[in-house]
């Protein structure tokens, strides 16, 4: 049996994404589902407590950044605490198979759904063969 190992591609000069630089204690990483459909990719992220105007989604240098600021509206004195909401932050690298202009977002009940359509060139094409 041949054991294959994939060499780690570590490039010392590679630009670090913001996620690596940021201290992990300062933000929460939302859990995500990513799945493929015939039209492209769908990214689903849990962002509890984040209102529509607290959400910031951007694409820059092929990096998709999701940021969310939850509203904290606690009244009275704390009795018992199991969680503390902080700003949400997560980044993904996009390949050129994604049509970046066509990305759409929908936020409902604290769940963000991003639809990333396939770029035209990534769509399978049938090449007709003419018989001579």
């Amino acid at each position, binding site marked *: 049996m041949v054991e294959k190992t994939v060499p780690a591609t570590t490039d010392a000069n590679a630009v670090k994404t913001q996620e690596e630089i940021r201290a992990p204690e300062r933000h929460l990483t939302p859990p995500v589902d990513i799945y493929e459909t015939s039209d492209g990719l769908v990214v689903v992220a849990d962002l509890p407590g984040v209102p529509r105007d607290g959400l910031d989604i951007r694409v820059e240098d092929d990096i998709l950044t999701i940021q969310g600021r939850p509203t904290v509206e606690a009244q009275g004195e704390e009795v018992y605490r199991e969680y503390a909401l902080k700003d949400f932050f997560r980044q993904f690298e996009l390949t050129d198979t994604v049509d970046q202009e066509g990305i759409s977002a929908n936020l409902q009940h604290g*769940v963000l759904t991003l639809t990333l359509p396939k770029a035209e060139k990534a769509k399978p094409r049938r090449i007709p063969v003419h018989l001579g």
Partner: protein
Amino acid sequence: MLDLLREMEQLRREFDRAFTVSHPPSWRSAFLPGRGARQYPLINLHEDREHLYLEAMMPGADPKSIDVSLVRNTLTISGEKARWTGTTRVDDEAYHRNERAAGRFVRTVDLPVEVNEKGIKADYRNGVLWITLPKAESAKPRHISVAVAA
């Protein structure tokens, strides 16, 4: 019959306690439950003189499935979180990542004081359930004036 109920209740509390001790809620990183989380949803509890305020973090729960009920001072929250946001089913093979937990959940919370069940309000906003529970008259703090002998 009542004794049986009470014993069941006691058993349940003992189970709850056993799990809580060995697995303290680590809300630092696990602010969202992973799979197999014993307690879902996670809650926070606040109070003032008149009310208890409970918030439960449960993003993506179907609002129609959410149910809040009270028996004596045990509050039960249940609901269902759908695996897919749309109506279409997604095949397992289509997933690149699957980190979000899904399914039915039930959690019971023992409230620290008696509450008045009539005035309970629950509101589901941005994936967080806010429950306001008015304290029972007997649970509100009372000031007793102290007569000082001259």
